[in-house]
């Protein structure tokens, strides 16, 4: 069987995603868990780069790896004492989690099996940045100005709420 270089890279990235996702939920220490999550996000960004969608890959790196994970690590540093280990799971909780995970996996697999994906191909060349910008800022069909603005209002509300909680009285 002939495997192309692209496929090898894809399988490596997929393996990293699977292994690190499992490690992220099985490890006992919360900061290690955050680090494994970081690797999952890196590998996802790698898949975006492989698909030649470098804008989404860079967004993934800067928002998730550089932003969200730093936020997680910061809050862990501020809140959890040294040598903090997760307590052992109760039996009921463990099974509830297992059932929820299996149900989620079943839904995902069902959708993946029934949905008809387009032809398997990697588009050569990158999508021009202008096109992405117009799609984000346009008001026509398949353009996303309204969701974009809604999210910015949501974020503003979050900031105001954060200041309200944190301010000194």
């Amino acid at each position: 069987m002939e495997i192309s270089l692209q496929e090898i890279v894809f399988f490596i990235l997929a393996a990293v995603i699977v292994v690190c996702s499992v490690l992220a939920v099985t490890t006992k220490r919360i900061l290690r868990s955050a680090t494994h999550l970081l690797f999952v996000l890196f590998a996802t960004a790698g898949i975006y780069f492989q698909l030649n969608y470098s804008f989404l890959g860079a967004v993934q790196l800067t928002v998730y790896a550089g932003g969200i994970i730093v936020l997680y690590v910061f809050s862990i540093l501020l809140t959890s004492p040294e040598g903090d280990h997760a307590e052992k799971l109760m039996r009921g909780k463990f099974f509830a989690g297992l059932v929820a995970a299996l149900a989620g996996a079943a839904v995902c697999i069902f959708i993946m099996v029934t949905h008809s994906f387009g032809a398997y191909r990697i588009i050569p060349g990158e999508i021009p940045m202008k096109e992405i910008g117009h799609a984000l800022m346009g008001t026509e069909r398949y353009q996303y100005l309204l969701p974009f603005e809604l999210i910015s209002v949501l974020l503003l509300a979050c900031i105001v709420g954060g200041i309200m909680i944190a301010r000194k009285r």
Partner: protein
Amino acid sequence: MFDFAVVTEWVDGLLRSWLPESWAVLAEFFLIGLCLLLAYAVIALVLILAERKVCAYFQCRLGPNRVGPWGLTQSVADMFKMLIKELIQVRHVDNFLFNLAPYIVIISSVLAFGCIPYAKGLEIIDFNVGIFFLLAVSSIGIVGILLAGWSSNNKYSLIGAMRSGAQMISYELSIGLSILTMVVFSGSMQLSTIVESQADGWFLFRGHIPAFIAFIVYLIAGTAETNRGPFDLPEADSELTAGYHTEYSGMHFGFFYLAEFLNMFIVASVAATLFLGGWMPLHIPGWEGFNAAMDWIPSIFWFIGKVAVMIFIIMWFKWTFPRLRIDQLLRLEWKYLLPLNLCNLLLMVIVVVFNLHF
């Protein structure tokens, strides 16, 4: 002007004639990686020597002068010392994170290093979102520093890491906004296009006032981003021994050290690329003879020269100003640089829309 694409295409053709397609690509990956790491190490050695010499002259000393003529091989000797030192196993640390942290820091720095256009035809990673990618990968380094500080199980390290994290997150905003100002001006995020479009005048001169403000802000924020003096409080030696890398020894410490110097190089070369034209020679529209004479100097020398000037300015900062306090540092960013930057972005948009630039 000599185009380095001639060399790289020749190597590419040679490899393709010997090997099947995919193996040739793989071999090229390894070759490029090797060249990149080699350049990374050599530039770090040069920078360490330069830092020590510049510091010495600022303080009316001689600096390294025993090993080799003018102390030139001092940093090579230091490198070998660092390489053969023992990696000390610290007890009561989270071993996995402790050993991982230096690699995260160095990988983020090497990735950013790979984006820079060095000379005509010498670009390794040239996405159409190039400058954004560079910002994205350089923001990963913070995670490494935070992990290093936490996993060392040492109060000084933790304080250093927290300071560093707060500082880098804050100043990343200023860096992002000042780069955005220049992206608005150039109309492209691809680094090669940015350099090409400065052929008839560098952006610092063509963008006049807003470009100049963005340049100053970028320099201040870039110095802070690399944790260098006067913003070096994450590793303030007199307060925190060595900050987040106190517990590290041998080459793991070396990685932090290398990444710090190379981040300075990356900041300097991004400043050179965005504002001073990268490898583009100094061109003045209308002066044909002058432009031809400038073209005669190879592009790589232009790049190195500009970066050297920027690095000298950053070092000058370090040995001139005293260290800031953490509250002063954050006030400088949030109360002065950020509003200034936002106004400047608006000014740049006005300049571009009404075509007020040269």
